[in-house]
């Protein structure tokens, strides 16, 4: 009976629960003894010229070791020009010190383009002194007009990069779309608002150069990629750099590779010869860590009166913030997934990327796909309303049927496997959809102040979008029969240690408590891609599985040799972890004995596993919301989901990912938004103002099971990490709008705060 698919609690937990994790700020390694602290001086203007920086008062403050500006960065190569045509398609572009007309300096040179842009670094003995001294650095700013709205960026009256001649970084605008032949056409401009990732641990890095070799401890989702980024930035051989990801307190895509400010910490460590540590404050994090989403959508949907969608158009304006770190990568993914799980004949997509005087945008849980799903799910509801059909029914009539897989979409995606109608039917049954509609009808009839809204969302999402980067694994059976797994995956909460141990136990019969999983240290694992894009299980886990199988075959040969039998007669008893000759259990050899027989080469296998293509998990969500129509207050009362990511290795871990995803998805729909004033000042720059969702705003979730395997990898697994977020946001938004649709409301932009909901109700009532 395989352990795969069973509920296994995490091996990681006892340490985390009793001693706490070891995050960058907790490291007490000898190399960091006496490490100085780095405090950044950051711009408090959205757009300004820098006339001068006066560090004299700071330099005189207690404990100050150095104050560094761009002028001190004279010992690293200039940034390379940006690649022709932007970052390679399918790669999560890491923030690089890029050259060219959109160049982002490591430390501001003659101007700043967003509140939070780093201008100087103060090095002190301790962090208290750092905060004091940073206040004393005097920067002479000459404010410039700021651009915050994408419309203003497009108008181009103020240019963030005068040499570029425009605020538009990349443009592939959508054509008109083919809506002839549609009985009904509905269009709308909607917003997928800017949000902040808010991992509980912000950005942090520590660095030490010894004899020309750099060690960096950094809160990252991929140490190995970080190492190559820094090798390029410093112009040194990668062998001269060791990157260690200790425990990482959440990433959500915003800690992919190494942050520019962390590169500065490593640079400053070499420049001053001191070990350094930098741990950002939350206020810093809210403006200094990249934000997510920030797309404006022009959506148009058309079809027949009996519910068949014939055409869909999505035109995206991506606000990329002050520097186009990811170029067109995010809206490219949005366009790729624009049609969602639907069979629509004519789809027209396009995008433009503009810069604004705000924090740069990068990946955040879903990275372009939540935006695509939110757009088409709003479009489906608008279409349903226009033809007077139930929104679930409209979806059913347009979902790609189960017998059409693999399915090539007009947007260029190749969906591997799916049962979209099955997922929809399951969630409707599981939520008691008919009963909910009946309750809604009763409340409408009575004219209750508190109305009920039911939101439906069907989605498909792309995981391991960079399947061809693959992942590495090395499995070693030690002489004592224990196993060590070197994985390229890089956990920051997902539970890889437990899952990979389960794989080893399932494949080789070595018990989980005899398996050690190592990750995140480039000295131990020099080549890897890392954890993002929901790729770990299908690439990293499968790599472990394949390495297990190779080890198993090597072991078979060794055992056969030991027992002087033929390989074909050797059997591995997985339950007991013993090799024996078939029909002769008494001949059993332990893994320890077999490994010891391997001699100096040892018993090990290394695999770099790539998939032929990404995989496409899918699902349907039903959200139930109550809206107090007198105040606009929204309460999410139920959230029911089907999230099908193929075979489930450990339901405990999968559920955890779904819960976390749903919460962040609901948070975007209900509460969270990074807001700027017209001068580019953030109005939500602390956690007192940025409405991160808490336990009181969420119900317990109802998760339904569905496993539709993929043929793309031998475990049949897809990625679950972002799926919950992708399905939840539109379900919740649709529920809120549905609650007041009988009053004439057709749309409410996210977040559906009480003020927004009330304004929508008021406007609808006034226009009737």
């Amino acid at each position: 009976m395989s352990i795969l698919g069973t509920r296994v609690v995490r091996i990681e937990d006892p340490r985390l629960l009793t001693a706490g994790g070891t995050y960058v700020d907790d490291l007490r390694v000898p190399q960091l003894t006496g490490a100085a602290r780095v405090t950044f001086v950051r711009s408090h203007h959205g757009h300004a010229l820098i006339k001068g920086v006066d560090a004299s008062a700071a330099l005189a403050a207690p404990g100050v070791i150095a104050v560094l500006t761009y002028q001190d960065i004279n010992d690293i190569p200039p940034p390379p020009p940006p690649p022709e045509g932007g970052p390679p398609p399918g790669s999560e572009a890491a923030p690089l010190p890029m050259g060219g007309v959109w160049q982002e300096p490591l430390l501001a040179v003659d101007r700043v383009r967003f509140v939070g842009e780093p201008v100087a670094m103060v090095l002190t003995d301790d962090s208290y002194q750092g905060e004091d001294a940073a206040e004393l650095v005097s920067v002479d700013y000459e404010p410039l007009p700021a651009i915050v709205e994408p419309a203003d960026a497009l108008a181009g009256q103020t240019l963030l990069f005068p040499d570029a001649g425009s605020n538009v970084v990349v443009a592939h605008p959508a054509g008109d779309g083919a809506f002839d032949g549609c009985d009904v056409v509905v269009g709308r401009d909607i917003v997928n608002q800017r949000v902040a990732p808010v991992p509980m641990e912000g950005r942090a890095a520590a660095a030490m150069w010894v004899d020309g070799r750099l060690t960096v401890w950094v809160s990252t989702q991929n140490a190995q990629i970080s190492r190559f980024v820094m090798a390029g930035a410093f112009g040194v051989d990668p062998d001269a750099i060791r990157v260690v990801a200790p425990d990482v307190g959440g990433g959500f895509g915003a800690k992919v590779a190494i942050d520019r400010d962390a590169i500065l910490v490593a640079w400053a460590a070499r420049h001053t010869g001191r070990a350094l540590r930098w741990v950002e404050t939350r206020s810093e994090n809210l403006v200094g860590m990249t934000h997510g989403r920030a797309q404006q959508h022009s959506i148009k949907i058309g079809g027949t009166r009996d519910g068949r969608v014939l055409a869909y158009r999505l035109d995206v304006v991506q606000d990329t913030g002050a520097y186009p770190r990811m170029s067109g990568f995010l809206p490219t993914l949005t366009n790729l997934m624009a049609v969602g799980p639907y069979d629509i004949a004519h789809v027209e997509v396009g995008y433009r990327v503009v810069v604004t005087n705000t924090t740069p945008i990068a990946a955040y849980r879903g990275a372009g796909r939540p935006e695509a799903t939110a757009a088409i799910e709003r479009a489906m509801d608008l279409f349903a309303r226009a033809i007077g059909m139930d929104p679930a029914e409209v979806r059913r009539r347009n979902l790609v049927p189960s017998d059409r897989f693999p399915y090539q979409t007009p947007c260029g995606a190749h969906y591997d496997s799916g049962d979209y109608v099955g997922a929809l039917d399951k969630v409707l049954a599981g939520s008691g959809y008919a009963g909910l509609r009946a309750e809604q009808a009763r409340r409408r009839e009575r004219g209750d102040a508190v109305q009920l809204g039911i939101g439906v969302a069907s989605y498909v999402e792309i995981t391991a979008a960079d399947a061809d980067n693959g992942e590495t694994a090395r499995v070693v059976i030690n002489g004592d029969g224990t196993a060590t797994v070197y994985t390229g995956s890089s956990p920051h909460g997902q539970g890889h240690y437990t899952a990979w141990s389960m794989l080893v136990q399932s494949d080789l019969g070595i018990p989980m408590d005899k398996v050690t999983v190592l990750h995140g240290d480039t000295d131990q694992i020099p080549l890897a891609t890392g954890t993002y894009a929901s790729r770990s299980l299908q690439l990293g886990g499968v790599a472990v599985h394949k390495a297990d199988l190779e080890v198993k075959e090597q072991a078979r040969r060794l055992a056969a040799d030991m027992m002087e039998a033929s390989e074909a007669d050797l059997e591995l008893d997985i339950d007991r972890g013993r090799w024996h000759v078939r029909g002769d259990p008494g001949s059993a050899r332990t893994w320890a004995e077999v490994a010891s027989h391997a001699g100096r080469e040892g018993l090990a296998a290394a695999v770099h596993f790539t998939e032929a293509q990404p995989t496409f998990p899918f699902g349907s969500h039903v959200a139930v919301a109550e809206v107090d129509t007198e105040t606009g207050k929204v309460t999410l009362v139920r959230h029911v989901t089907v999230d099908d990511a193929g075979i489930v290795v450990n339901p405990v871990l999968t559920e955890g990912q779904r819960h976390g995803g749903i919460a962040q998805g609901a948070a975007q729909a209900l509460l969270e938004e990074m807001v700027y004033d017209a001068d580019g000042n953030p109005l939500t720059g602390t956690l007192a103002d940025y409405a991160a969702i808490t336990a009181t705003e969420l119900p317990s979730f109802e998760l339904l099971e569905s496993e539709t395997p993929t043929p793309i990898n031998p475990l049949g697994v897809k990625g679950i990490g972002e799926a919950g977020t992708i399905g939840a946001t539109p379900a919740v938004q649709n529920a809120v709008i549905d609650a007041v649709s009988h009053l004439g409301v057709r749309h409410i932009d996210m977040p559906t705060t009480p003020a927004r909901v009330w304004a929508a109700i008021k406007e609808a009532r006034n226009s009737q």
Partner: protein
Amino acid sequence: MIPAPFTYQRAGSVDEALSLAAQGGEDAKFLAGGHSLLPLMKLRLAVPEVLVDIGRLSELSYVREDNGHIAVGALTTHHDLANSSLLGGELPLLAHAAGQVGDPQIRHRGTIGGSLVHSDPAGDLPAVILVLDATLVARGPSGSREIPAGEFFEGLFETALAPGELLTEIRIPRPAQAGWSFQKFTKRAIDWAIVGAAVQGDQVALVHMGSTPLRASAVEQALAGGAAPAEAAARAADGTSPPEDINADREYREHLARVLVARGLAEARSRA
């Protein structure tokens, strides 16, 4: 994240606290639970040079009957207020409101005195004290004085306390009418009120409808004149000057005030 440097002094008695504060002058502030002051200091929005810690003056933490009214020591924590059976019986409005301040951790440290002296217009307890016609007792270098709640809150983060004066007690008369309601409207449960209404009988005070807590006088007058609660509640925004922020504009706050007062009056009557 870290306060600017300051000198910490600990008072062993009220007299010592007053004396230390007098020595510190303009640059000294009292530190009680610290959950209004320290957050400001950590953002360096307040930079007192001297903190006089009065947190150990346990003689200022009490809830008791005294001469026909309820006396609450200024250093009583929100947690203790919320769990006081005396308050629960006599002044459930105050007990309930105290239980809504912030979160459990904040309520374990924050004090009623600290909240009142901080005088944040979005705070809950100032409006409650106002609607209950409380009297605030302050001690200064020249002795004790009593300040009616209606005169205590002077402006945005400003009270009638003179520099170096310490709030020691809040005296609350037994309410004439038993019905009460506390309507706190927030985006998230942990947030400050966007708008709030504290109701005791036919008396109503508003949270976050001006730079100080405000009695909804027009509502009270309408009720006194025989208006039905729903009718009276329509006057809730009269005489208010609500702020505009990312959570609400003026119009929305005025609307919320009317709705919350209507609900508050209805709930108070159901409890009468």
